[in-house]
């Protein structure tokens, strides 16, 4: 029977280090199901109070952009420098703006 079953699925783990901060990706692990993934994430990634909240997501469910599309996706923003505050000259007398 054992050889018929495959390895436990892979999960991505996100940890909120403290209230007020976002969840951050910290690694992955194998677990049979979601409750087990949460428990394992607790043991593997928060042994020293690194977190107050954990998300786990099946790695297979993550949709990612491809590095090949990097140019197409991100480069159009490069020539829109007017989107940055530093594009605008404001007289020094105005002070902080």
């Amino acid at each position, binding site marked *: 029977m054992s050889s018929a079953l495959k390895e*436990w699925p892979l999960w991505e783990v996100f940890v909120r280090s403290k209230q007020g901060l976002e969840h951050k990706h910290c690694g992955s692990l194998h677990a*049979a199901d979601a409750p087990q993934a949460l428990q394992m994430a607790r043991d593997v990634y928060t*042994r020293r109070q690194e977190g107050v909240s954990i998300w786990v997501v099946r790695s297979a469910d993550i949709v*990612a952009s491809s590095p090949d599309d990097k140019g197409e996706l991100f480069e159009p923003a490069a020539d829109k420098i007017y989107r940055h505050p530093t594009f605008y000259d404001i007289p020094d007398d105005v002070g902080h703006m």
Partner: protein
Amino acid sequence: MYTQSFSVSDGNAKDTHKGPKPVPVISAEDAAKIAAFEQRIADDGRIEPQDWMPEAYRKTLVRQISQHAHSEIVGMLPEGNWITRAPSLKRKAILIAKVQDEGGHGLYLYSAAETLGVSRDKMLDDLHTGRAKYSSIFNYPTLTWADVGVIGWLVDGAAIMNQIPLCRCSYGPYARAMIRVCKEESFHQRQGYESLMVMMRGTEEQRAMVQDAVNRWWWRCLAMFGPPDADSPNSALGMRYGIKRFSNDDLRQKFVDATVPQAEILGVTLPDPDLKWNDQRGHYDYGAIDWDEFWRTVNGDGPCNKERLATRVKADRDGQWVRDAALAHARKRAAREAKEAA
């Protein structure tokens, strides 16, 4: 905890001198990809899992990261041996925490290796069938309680020297895993040194026990850094790919320089009559390492190679029904939930 600073060939290391390899034909497209990749390495950039990478880079990383992961997991055994025999509840709690950390380090590293497209099962299978190597330092027995302290101080100390530069290695997931590992490693070294300090303040017998453990572990720790630069075939590739940042000999020297004053404060003698400060070099000189013993142990003839592997294989086999049951339970529950939702 412990990296094999060198990444030895899996299989029978050292004796396998290969002839010249046939030169592969490289298309113009591949040449452009290689150039972009090498430029990114030269710029101290990072490579992420989905990025294109040369096959040799991927292979080198899979070998090094999986050997590193195996080392963490097998590294739980020599110290785990002392959990039931720790001299106090405090030391037992500390040792359990440390051994659990080593397990955790193995898990971070297996995950990092998996991002390169190799499965966990494949890596474990390579370990259990003896195809994959792990750090040879774990093929020595832990004879007394002082060994546990010395492993923390010296073995983890040597590992830290190796691992800190890996936090800046070119492969993102490996570097991130190493940052996590290094944060925890300092506790390992300090708890070892502190437990030895307590013993050194104890009886004559306890001091002799510490000295005996230091005598047995010192040279193995120096060998942990891997063969001399001249005799380290994988080093050059590791350096070129930004995986390795310092040579084996440089790291070894750093370790010796850092450890000598620690030994003086502890009150133990490092078992090397040639160990002395060299004013000209600004470093400590040390004696010759027995590389024959090192290669014997790497290639399977150390005192505990068979026992370590057998313990791992048994643990894996004994745990199989638990893994199967958890998966069967998860599938059953998912099927039930699907039915209820329908």
